[in-house]
């Protein structure tokens, strides 16, 4: 099979009007999700600085169009796996931001009852199987749910997110090979933000066009502008369709950029402030906002109202998290180590 490479849709960014048949309500919804992610992330940074949030924090700022565009192509019943930079995907999938903020605060009302924190958001009811902190490991899990859907004759598609840095490890190749061998319904979304932590793409990967790695498996692949939410959505729709119709997996390489450090503690020795500033002029949210106004899809006043509503929701999430209870310490053991708890007799000293 040939590579379906670059040149996907005409650059919608320059189009004088939205793509034919695009529902204005959908455009607004995509914009809403992107802004919600941005504001949520900015608030996380603020709460981290105030030491309300601890541990490791990997923000999605700058990459919103990728996650929102890709997830918008999924239906109920589809699966998502993602990496530790998981806030954006969780919000795009509609996880409750109160529960997400509470998780970051380590509260019992969080998505993981405070056990997991930032890197491990999850919601089984939405088949959002969570963030995984070991780079690359979750690609295989995604192949497994896709095989599960296939064997049980369910129509689900599994979408799995990972970074450019994750495409150098064995799991990536194991996952692509097996998924293609069995024509499994998996959409692999590589968020190519040009860095693996502090190592630039050209230093860590012998092939810098990640989509070309799929060629080794005769797998369909596309490189798309992940900073254009409509381009991303179109590519994801094509990929999901391909996967769901039994034609096999697809690798999407979404070109994007993170505006913040790898994590909240990163001093970013590996790139200059000017590099980041230059990129900021193409901020996916700003670009989309200008498009919506230029297309006359929505009035500026309505956009501002929406943005204020989002600010209020994020503020309310902080208050919800603040007001929530800490998990009780008995939860360390009661949270479920085995389906049927094993009691030790005689008991361990001091317990």
């Amino acid at each position, binding site marked *: 099979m040939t590579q379906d490479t670059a040149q996907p849709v005409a650059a919608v960014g320059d189009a004088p009007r939205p793509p034919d048949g695009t529902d204005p309500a959908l455009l607004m919804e995509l914009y809403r999700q992107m802004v919600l992610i941005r504001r949520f992330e900015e608030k996380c940074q603020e709460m981290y600085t105030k030491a309300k949030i601890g541990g490791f924090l990997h923000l999605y700022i700058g990459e919103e169009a990728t996650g929102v565009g890709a997830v918008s192509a999924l239906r109920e019943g589809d699966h998502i796996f993602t990496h530790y930079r998981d806030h954006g995907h969780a919000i795009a999938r509609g996880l409750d931001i109160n529960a997400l903020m509470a998780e970051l605060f*380590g509260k019992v009302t969080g998505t*993981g009852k405070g*056990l997991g924190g930032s890197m*491990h958001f999850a919601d089984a009811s939405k088949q959002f199987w969570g963030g995984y902190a070991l780079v690359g490991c979750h690609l295989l899990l995604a192949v497994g749910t896709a095989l599960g859907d296939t064997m049980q004759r369910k129509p689900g598609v599994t979408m799995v997110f990972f970074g450019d840095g994750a495409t150098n490890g064995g799991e990536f190749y194991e996952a692509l090979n097996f998924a293609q061998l069995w024509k499994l319904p998996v959409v692999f979304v590589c968020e190519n933000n040009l860095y693996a932590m502090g190592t630039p793409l050209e*230093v860590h990967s012998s092939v810098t066009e990640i989509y070309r790695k799929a060629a080794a498996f005769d797998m369909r692949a596309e490189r798309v502008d992940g900073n254009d939410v409509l381009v991303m959505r179109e590519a994801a729709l094509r990929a999901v369709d391909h996967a769901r119709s039994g034609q096999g997996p697809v690798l999407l390489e979404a070109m994007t950029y993170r505006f913040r450090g790898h994590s909240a503690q990163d001093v970013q020795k590996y790139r200059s402030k000017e590099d980041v500033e230059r990129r900021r002029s193409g901020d996916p949210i700003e670009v989309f906002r200008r498009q919506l106004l230029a297309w006359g899809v929505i009035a500026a006043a309505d956009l501002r109202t929406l943005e204020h509503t989002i600010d209020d929701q994020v503020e309310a999430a902080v208050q919800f998290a603040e007001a929530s209870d*800490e998990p009780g310490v008995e939860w360390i053991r009661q949270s479920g180590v085995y389906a049927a708890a094993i009691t030790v007799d005689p008991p361990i*000293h001091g317990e």
Partner: protein
Amino acid sequence: MTTTEQTLLEAIRGAMHDALAWDARVVVLGEDVAVKGGVFLATDGLLERFGALRVIDMPIAEAGIVGVAIGMALHGLRPVAEIQFADYLYPAIDQILNEAARMRYRSNGDWNCPLVIRAPFGGGIHGALYHSQSVEALFTSTPGLKVVVPATPHDARGLLLAAIADPDPVLFLEHKRLYRTLRGPVATGQGATVPLGVAACRRPGRDVSIITYGAMVHESLRAADALAHEGVDLEVIDLRTLVPLDRDAVLATVRRTGRALIVSEDNLTGGFAGEIAAVIAEHGFADLDAPVRRLAAPDVPAVPFSETLEDAFMVSAAKIMTAARELARY
């Protein structure tokens, strides 16, 4: 020989710097070790000083890093590989246990595998499921591999230099919570190594022996200071090296106090504390005035994120005091 005040992190960075300067065979490799200077900045400045052939940024593939390092070690180099968190040793476990640990044995003692794998480990930093683990027991149970856990800046430098000079593979576990919080005098200079396999008595005492390693050395010393006010006198032994284990030091302290409390940050079942308990039971039985007691983390698969849960999960000075008090009274 001069002595300077350094953090644990500075001591480790200094040891690598000097090893690179003194020995042309030494190479540092790992994810983000060059341009970024390491996830914890342990290798900061080494690229600028020694260049890209001696300080190598590796792709995210731990089996690859260790496998390549094994080959380099077989072929005359002295690789010092960094694995960003001990939790990510697991993807490389086949290379470490099946290959590195067996090179000497499979060659009837002919081949050297002078490889050092450094990895930050341990909890107390809200790292949750995959950034907090104590992994030592997985490695101490495989002969052929040495396992080192420094607890002071001085030892970190001295043991790391000794590990790099050692002809066998060494897993070097650095407690990440101590990186910047712990400062102390460090003897520098080429001769200032600390031998592998020798424990240190951090505090002499009469009533109960605390046998421990890593960050728990400091929790134990805090507990000892506090219990001194109650008239309970703790002796604190820092093992420094788990393999080879300084059995003499373990048995000698039990001989002095007759009571052994083994403290480990890892969970209890199958942890390294059990090995120490077995050594005492087999060889120190006659010296005991009380049963050997282990204090460790709960038997659950991961360290929880929430500060409240993590605090309750971790072994602390307060828990050590309670256990030591009970043992002293036995």
